[in-house]
């Protein structure tokens, strides 16, 4: 659903470029920026990867210093960080799979949640203006990690690959002819659909968010500054208000997508465990 919203905005933005309007409207090129460092090598960097690297350094510094200076009696910032950790621990992991099973997955869900949150927020940070998760590779990495993790936990907890696949592909209590249809679908689900959905959900949200926000700001600039026409002023102001609203919405989306991604990771891992445990 979010993907389709993204696409409609995408085409809307595309359509607008055809008109004799602002020349800097966002396009999908924003997500395929030219390589600016180490061009042509397998470790070339483009704008988004650079943003990602900078955000990583910031994240390591901020959270590293916070952890280093963590005290028994927390200050406000430490309290906030602890609140987020406990949020992931209890509301994401333990509420999904319980404390006993979930304990070992807390670091993973924390990593995904904090990283996704910070990377998503780059979309509204002035200067960055695009989420660090806004190329397919980053959400894909998260999703592959999730995939590997739930296959591993499934194989371990079910006692072998065969037993895990039997549990996933041939659920008990189903008449055998149904397996002909069900098993391939189930296999597709645990191998492709689940990680694919994770990837696309996050990526499409970031793409659509950037397109909407950038469109609003470009249009604001166009109607208020570029077009010298007082009659168009209110339109520009409306675009500005829309941009304002979308910025707030994007902050919300950044947190929401980080939350959804980590929750679904926990859910997928949990469903890989044997049912009767």
């Amino acid at each position, binding site marked *: 659903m979010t993907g389709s919203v993204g*696409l409609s905005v*995408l*085409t809307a*933005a*595309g359509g607008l*470029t055809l008109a004799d309007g602002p020349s800097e409207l966002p*396009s*999908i*090129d924003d*997500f*395929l920026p030219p*390589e600016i460092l*180490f061009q042509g*090598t*397998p*470790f*070339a*960097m*483009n704008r988004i*990867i650079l943003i*990602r*690297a900078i955000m*990583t350094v910031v*994240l*390591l510094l901020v*959270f*590293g210093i916070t*952890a*280093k200076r*963590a*005290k*028994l009696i927390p200050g406000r910032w430490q309290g906030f*960080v*602890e609140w987020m*950790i406990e949020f992931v621990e209890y509301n994401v992991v333990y509420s999904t799979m319980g404390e006993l099973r979930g304990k070992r997955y*807390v*670091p*993973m869900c*924390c*990593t995904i949640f*904090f*990283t996704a949150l910070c990377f998503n927020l780059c979309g509204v940070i002035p200067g960055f203006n695009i989420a660090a998760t806004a*190329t*397919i*590779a*980053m959400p*894909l*990495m*998260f999703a592959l*990690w999730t995939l590997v993790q739930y296959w591993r936990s499934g194989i371990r907890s079910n006692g072998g690959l065969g037993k895990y696949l039997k549990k996933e592909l041939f659920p008990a209590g189903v008449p055998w002819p149904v397996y002909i249809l069900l098993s391939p679908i189930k296999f597709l689900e645990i191998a492709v659909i689940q990680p694919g959905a994770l990837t*696309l959900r996050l*990526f499409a949200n970031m*793409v659509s968010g950037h397109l909407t926000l950038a469109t609003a700001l470009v249009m604001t600039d166009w109607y208020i500054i570029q077009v010298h026409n007082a009659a168009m002023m209110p339109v520009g102001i409306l675009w500005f208000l829309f941009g304002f609203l979308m910025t707030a919405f994007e902050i919300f989306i950044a947190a929401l997508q980080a939350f959804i991604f980590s929750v679904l990771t926990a859910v997928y891992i949990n469903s890989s465990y044997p049912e009767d445990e």
Partner: protein
Amino acid sequence: MTTLADGNGIDLFIPKTYDIFWSFIILVILAVFFYKFFLPRFQKIFDERAEKIQGGMDKAAAAEKEAEEAKKKYEDQLTQARVQASKIRDDARAEASHIIADARSRAESEAAQISANAQRSIESEQQQALVSLKGQVGTISVALAGKILGKELKSDAVQSDMIDSVLGDLEDESKED
């Protein structure tokens, strides 16, 4: 300007090699950071805090117990003191009534003695008065009778008869009183 209409929108969904490389490196760095440093560090803080709070709560519980004991002791003492006080009061009251009763009985016996003494002295005085009166009345009445009867009553025998009869009358009169 590239749009979806240009047909390379699919590029969005095909990860570049270098993008995969950097995403992977960054994710590994962040995962190591969260696994090895950030979370263990906070876990340690959480544990320490829990321990401290537990210790504080234990201490508070001990203090509460102590206070409870002290209160009980104090209340016991208070009850004891109250009992003692009421006992003392009762004793005092009993003694007081004892003293009053003693004093009363002593006073009563003294009063009885005094009145008995008074009675006795009155009686003896009365006796004395009677005796002395007897003599005087005899003399007076003899003199009076002598004067009335002339010399007829000069003999001693007549005189004492007369006196006795008069006294007898007097005694009768006093008995009638």
